[in-house]
């Protein structure tokens, strides 16, 4: 895993100046290189996205294990499925809005329904490309991909979890989508953290309210819990990196043991993590919920500005939690 701090413009310097921030693309690319070095079957497939995915690191060291298909996402996913048929372990890497949006039917048919051992790695997810506008925002992809049967969907929170998710995807035989970001995030997991597909990580204990987040929102949920603790509200924090399969037991326990749930995701409020949690809550243990995310197409601005615009901040999460605690 890289320890290079992120230098991207997405980091919110005003609120996170004292915290070391990391670009998870480094952890992704470094881990991919380690996997490719250890297993010659591993091959990176990119859509002219060597630089934007940082797969240049792999291409420099192991050029024979990188396939560049040009700007052709449908073909990229189909070729990935074909490489898997031939015994390779392809990591199909591209910017999430195009990887998922353009090639969604290929993800459904060639990867998931065919049961191909394809790893789909989306980079620059959510509003990482904030300034580039809604064409480049990827705020629908979790809804799309989690609706596809047999597809594992992982949204890691920090570089440690990104590296772990890459290894979990490699070890799992079948199709996996890993949704990574490029927005600077602090480390939220201990060095010995072990990510498991289908398991949520309980990052903070609490019995008043539960905060469920993934991706770049996990650090904000933890900060919200700190704000709430100062007011005497003890918030449980779950990192729900594995969106599919979902840790139903952790959600049911949260619903039964706390007064309600606030979900927070870098995604539209329809169909994503909050919806996934709500599907379990309403059928297993109904409790009040607040689903925080983007309301629709977003304006243009930096990622951190957009998160603040949508209330996806520690203060915004804490405010929703207070509503639940107040009943």
């Amino acid at each position: 895993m890289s320890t290079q701090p992120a230098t991207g413009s997405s980091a919110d310097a005003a609120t996170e100046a004292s915290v070391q921030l990391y670009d998870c693309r480094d952890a992704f690319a470094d881990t991919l290189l380690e996997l490719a070095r250890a297993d010659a079957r591993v091959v990176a497939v990119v859509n002219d996205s060597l630089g934007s995915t940082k797969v240049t690191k792999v291409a420099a060291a192991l050029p024979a294990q990188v396939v560049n298909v040009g700007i052709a996402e449908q073909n990229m996913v189909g070729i990935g499925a074909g490489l898997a048929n031939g015994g390779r372990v392809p990591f199909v890497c591209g910017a999430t809005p195009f990887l998922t949006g353009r090639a969604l039917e290929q993800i459904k048919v060639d990867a998931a329904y065919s049961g191909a051992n394809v790893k789909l790695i989306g980079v620059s997810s959510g509003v990482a490309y904030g300034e580039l506008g809604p064409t480049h925002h990827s705020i629908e992809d979790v809804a799309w991909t989690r609706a596809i049967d047999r597809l594992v969907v992982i949204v890691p929170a920090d570089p440690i979890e990104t590296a772990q998710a890459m290894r979990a995807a490699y070890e799992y035989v079948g199709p996996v989508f890993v949704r990574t970001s490029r927005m600077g995030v602090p480390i939220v997991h201990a060095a010995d953290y072990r990510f498991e597909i289908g398991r949520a990580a309980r990052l903070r204990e609490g019995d008043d309210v539960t905060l469920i987040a993934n991706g770049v929102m996990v650090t904000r949920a933890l900060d919200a819990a700190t704000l709430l603790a100062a007011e005497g509200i003890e918030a449980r924090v779950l990192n729900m990196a594995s969106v599919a399969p979902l840790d139903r037991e952790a959600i049911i326990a949260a619903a039964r043991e706390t007064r309600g749930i606030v979900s927070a995701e870098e995604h539209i409020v329809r169909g994503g993590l909050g919806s996934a949690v709500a599907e379990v809550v309403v059928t297993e243990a109904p409790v009040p919920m607040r689903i925080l995310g983007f309301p629709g197409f977003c304006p243009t601005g930096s990622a951190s500005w957009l998160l603040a615009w949508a209330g996806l901040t520690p203060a915004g999460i804490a405010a929703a939690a207070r509503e639940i605690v107040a009943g």
Partner: protein
Amino acid sequence: MLQRRAREARLHDLRMVYGAGMGHLGGEFSAMDILVTLFFGGVLRHDPARPDDPDRDRFVLSKGHSAAALYTILAMAGYFETAELATFLQPGSRLNGHPDRNKVPGVETNTGPLGHGFPVAVGIALSGQLDGSARRTFVLTGDGELQEGSMWEAAMAAGHFGLDKLVCIVDRNRLQQGDRTETTMGLDPLAPKFEAFGWAVRETHGNDPAALLETFAALPFEPSRPSCIIANTTKGRGVSFVEDRKEWHHRVPTEDEYRRAVAELEASEA
């Protein structure tokens, strides 16, 4: 011998579609001689007892709606019992309207929506090139299917990578679901399109096993290039009143038509 196999396959296919009350007879009959020649003409190196053999040649049915033809050929080749063909489209049958590799041995990738099998075949051929393997990949596409953009992404990549063990066979029957290809969205001139994408192209009679065998024997047509065979076929080939008629894309024969079709096919057997 191949002609007899092709007639036998058409009779199986006809029984399946008639029995199920649903299917895609026209495109299956146009492609049947290609499939028979590949599987029974000694072209495709495969072993029904070892469908997962990593060194097998691959056959990808990109025009997945011709599933009944593929099932027929796989059953006749020994991947499963021909008796199972009668379950085509029945509730719970593994013989879906479009092939499922997780259920049916011999199916390489799931197809159905058009424009999927060709890119997957390019990936399979690329894996062989990376491995330095001699295995070949054959992909059968519809001609109307070439209106999908993903097909040309795949064609471009195959030419760029110089996949000389990849063979794309176009079932050029000139009909698609709604009308003639050239009326709907013209594909001609087709050979120069593939050539411009880096392919070596030959045209052949796609309903003549002898002509197909001769064409397959010439593979690869050029070194360091993928090979494209434009197989000029007749949709519905083998039954006079089905041939070259667009309504038979997915029409189901009436009882009378079924009897006449069987009679025609059996008469041609003599």
